């Protein structure tokens, strides 16, 4: 009898003791238990023609991952970046995206600059129901349940740029771009817009990605004397283009160029004196005087030692990862499965105070509401913001000039013309 009591008492004391320990661990499990690792794919080019522009995006994304891990927004979760080099090759992008999803089991991929890469990765993320956060300006004409488009849509970049140039320079337009999907669609939009404004397109030229052979095009431009040039060249060709344009047009009246894909990295490489007087349309400039931008630049400076070459897509990737984190945090709070597509659902209607102002994800097309800024490089080599939309603009993926089906057909025709690629590889 007596012995039995001793056992019971011992058992109860042990129960209370272990219960207390369990309760403590349960309450503070976030600090004691090993954190769950969620992998984030970072897929950009570290070599090839896009090396210069995409390097900063990787840096900004890694900075965002660092900040999220330090902030404790995600209880019990640690983000781990998986960085691969896409080498400016869309086939390699698709291969690496598949590798990230199947081998590394990433929950999200932040990646792609060019639209041909995005289209290649799109088929992969759709096949495996994963999520791509796309931080670059693009041509619209696409919707996917596995992509969040945070870059500027045509109505947030191309159209305002053309309108501004029309009002201030004239009606003769020369279009020049890289020979892949984005410039073709952008130029199709511009074509319709210029037509509705009663303007004239004096020439359209496409250069292969990574080409430095720009002399013919510039001679053609000089011959046709447009009022302004619309530049949709991507990558290192920009450096050759601006350098030679500057060399060949010395002495004659300067033709202003409005660019949609020239990043600070390339402007620095071209040299600010050769680039001044030209226009750019982005949502972000390093000089923006907002507390968020100052904080970002400070953090970036601290991590990488300089704040050179920060571009709009870099900021967008940075904000995009944070928006994804907000969605993930909400998914964790509501104890749902952390499926990439479910997290995408939670990302919709999220907003963030990013260095580029408010970025809000539209629930209908998963594109971003962004503020439009048109800037001019002045004689001192500084950016002057000549027009601002003051508030974020609703994104439109299919522009009004064609119906959705017409746009899809237009893309399909290009795709078949280029032998089932999103890039003209024939020249």
């Amino acid at each position, binding site marked *: 009898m007596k012995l039995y009591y001793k056992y019971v008492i011992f058992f109860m004391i042990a129960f209370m003791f272990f219960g207390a320990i369990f309760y403590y661990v349960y309450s503070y499990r976030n600090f004691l238990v090993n954190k769950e690792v969620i992998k984030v794919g970072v897929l950009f080019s570290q070599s090839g023609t896009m090396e210069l522009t995409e390097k900063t995006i990787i840096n900004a994304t890694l900075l965002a991952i660092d900040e999220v891990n330090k902030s404790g927004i995600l209880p019990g979760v640690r983000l781990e970046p998986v960085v691969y080099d896409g080498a400016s090759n869309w086939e390699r992008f698709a291969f690496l995206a598949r590798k990230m999803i199947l081998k590394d089991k990433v929950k999200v991929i932040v990646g792609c600059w060019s639209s041909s890469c995005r289209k290649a990765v799109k088929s992969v993320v759709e096949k495996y129901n994963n999520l791509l956060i796309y931080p670059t300006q693009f041509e619209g004409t696409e919707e996917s349940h596995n992509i969040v488009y945070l870059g500027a849509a045509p109505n947030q970049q191309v159209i305002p740029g053309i*309108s501004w140039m029309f009002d201030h320079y004239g009606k003769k337009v020369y279009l020049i771009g890289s020979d892949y999907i984005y410039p073709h669609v952008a130029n199709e939009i511009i074509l319709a817009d210029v037509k509705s404004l009663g303007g004239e397109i004096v020439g359209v030229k496409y250069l292969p990605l990574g080409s430095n052979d720009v002399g013919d095009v510039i001679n053609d431009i000089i011959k046709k004397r447009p009022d302004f040039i619309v530049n949709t060249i991507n990558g290192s060709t920009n450096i050759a283009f601006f350098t030679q344009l500057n060399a060949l047009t010395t002495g004659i009246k300067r033709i202003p160029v409005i660019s949609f894909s020239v990043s600070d990295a390339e402007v620095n490489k071209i040299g600010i004196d050769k680039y001044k007087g030209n226009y750019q349309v982005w949502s972000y400039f390093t000089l923006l005087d907002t507390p968020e931008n100052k904080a970002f630049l400070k953090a970036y400076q601290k991590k990488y030692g300089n704040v050179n070459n920060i571009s709009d897509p870099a900021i967008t990737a940075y904000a995009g990862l944070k928006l994804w984190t907000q969605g993930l945090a909400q998914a964790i709070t509501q104890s749902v499965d952390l499926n990439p597509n479910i997290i995408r659902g939670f990302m919709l209607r999220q907003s963030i*105070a990013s260095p580029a102002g408010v970025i809000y994800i539209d629930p209908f097309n998963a594109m971003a*509401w962004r503020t439009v800024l048109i800037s001019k490089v002045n004689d001192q080599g500084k950016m002057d913001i000549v027009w601002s939309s003051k508030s974020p603009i609703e994104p439109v993926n299919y522009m009004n000039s064609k119906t959705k089906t017409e746009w899809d057909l237009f893309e399909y025709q290009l795709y078949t013309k280029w032998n089932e690629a999103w890039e003209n590889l024939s020249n």
Partner: protein
Amino acid sequence: MNKIRLFFQTIFSGHAIIPWMLIVAIIPMCFVSFFAYHIAKTILHQAININLMTTIQKKIEVIDSYIRERKIDLYQISELPTLLKAIQNSQAKNGQIDVLDPNLMAPFSSYLNYLSKKIGINNVYILNLSGKVIYTLKNDAILGTILSADSKMSMDVYSSYEGAKILREPYLFATHQEGRRSSASDIFLSRPVMGGGSLKAIIVIRINAQKIETIIDRLLGYGKSEETLLATLINNTPVVVMYSKEGIDEKNIDILDSQKIQGYLLQAIRGESSTPVELEGNGKGIMAVYRYVPQLNMGMLLKYDRSEVFERIHWLGLNMLLFIVVSLLFVVTLVFWISRELSLANQKNEDLLANTFPDFVIKELKHKKQFLAKNVDHVSIIFIDIADFTTYSLDKPPEIVVQFLDNIFTLFDQICGKYNAMKIKTIGDAYMAASGLTEYREDHAKNTVDLGIQIILAMKHFNLNHKTNFSVRVGIDSGMITEGVIGKTKFSFDIWGNAVNRASRMQSTSEKNKIQITEETFQALTNKEDYTFTPRSNLTVKGLGELNTYFVEEKDSANF
């Protein structure tokens, strides 16, 4: 050290059963109850948080869909055939529309007048591409003027016009005047008018912001204490331009004094969103949740009394507490009852055991589950036999006999207790006791002799009281005996040995009211001077041969 050991012995002994059972039952129960309460509270807390965030989300969605509907209205107005025809027939100046056909614009105006009441449009403007106002629905001073960003009067219309012109998409521009109520705020929605595939003009509609206030008002929120604030940036400070509070007509915007609300509103306008945050007090004051409103480029803050929202949690807590208290009381009562029953049963057992066995036997039985037989020296054994009891009992009913015997033996038991002697058993009318069993006693012989003397006296008393004529024969011997317990389920304690036999013989060869002791007892007596001895030398005892024995009496028995 001893005290501590004693303390532990006490609390771990069977006597402390009640407090221990209480502790054993109640502490884990309290623990489990608290744990369950905590989990339930956390889940409810989270549910409320999610609910609040859904509420603010819903309000934003209502605004969103309202503005989207107005954009569709605007699109349909801009596509009206009358308008397009009027634009086609218009007079141009410098390549821009200058005057719209008045004949066609009259039905357009009447239609707009009808529509404006229906969808809440305040005014409609149409501007040509050089910024000249070519049409207004209501007679406005700006008709015919060329607008610019510098003119303070028409700045809002111009901003709206410029937005749509550059973006080529519906553009929303909201104006607010500092220090004034929402009725002074206006929302301008503009979009391009396309005629024959080219951009012809910009159409702008003006909606009163009060309309939005009304739709937020109409949307049921979380509770009565809820207030909704919509703020925008004016000169880099957040200014509340719309305000709604359920069930209250009078609207005072005096809440802006709070520095914290200003801060939150600023964050909301910048695009941050929050989980519920505290505004005032230590968990008892005002809570808020804020979000960015994309369509208006404003920040929304939902403010509510914590007490109201957490009413349900308090209710849950109260219920839980009541439940815990009631079940604790129940458990306490149950435990008390069970342990009392248990301890009563235990006591009964122990009493019974104590009657059957000597204390030291019980102790050893409890500890070791068995009692080992052992030899004990220096023990005196006394046999007392009631003489002629058999003859007396012959003609008596058995109940009376047993009653008599019981009375007599009870008397013997009482006397035994006085003389440190232990009753071993009774055999018929004989009574057997011993002294010196539990521990070594120098006076074991004296005890038994005194016991014998006392019993003889007591019997005399008994005879007087009961008018009987009983006498006793007493025999005593001292020496070594063996003690032990026999039986596994039905125990009995007994002693064996030569001394026991001899004591029995002493009794049988003794005389009425005399105490016969052996030589060994005589030697063991320490106070021989107190007694008078009458030796009975060379008494032949059956089975033992010749023995020296003594009759012993108290020295001054004459006193009795």
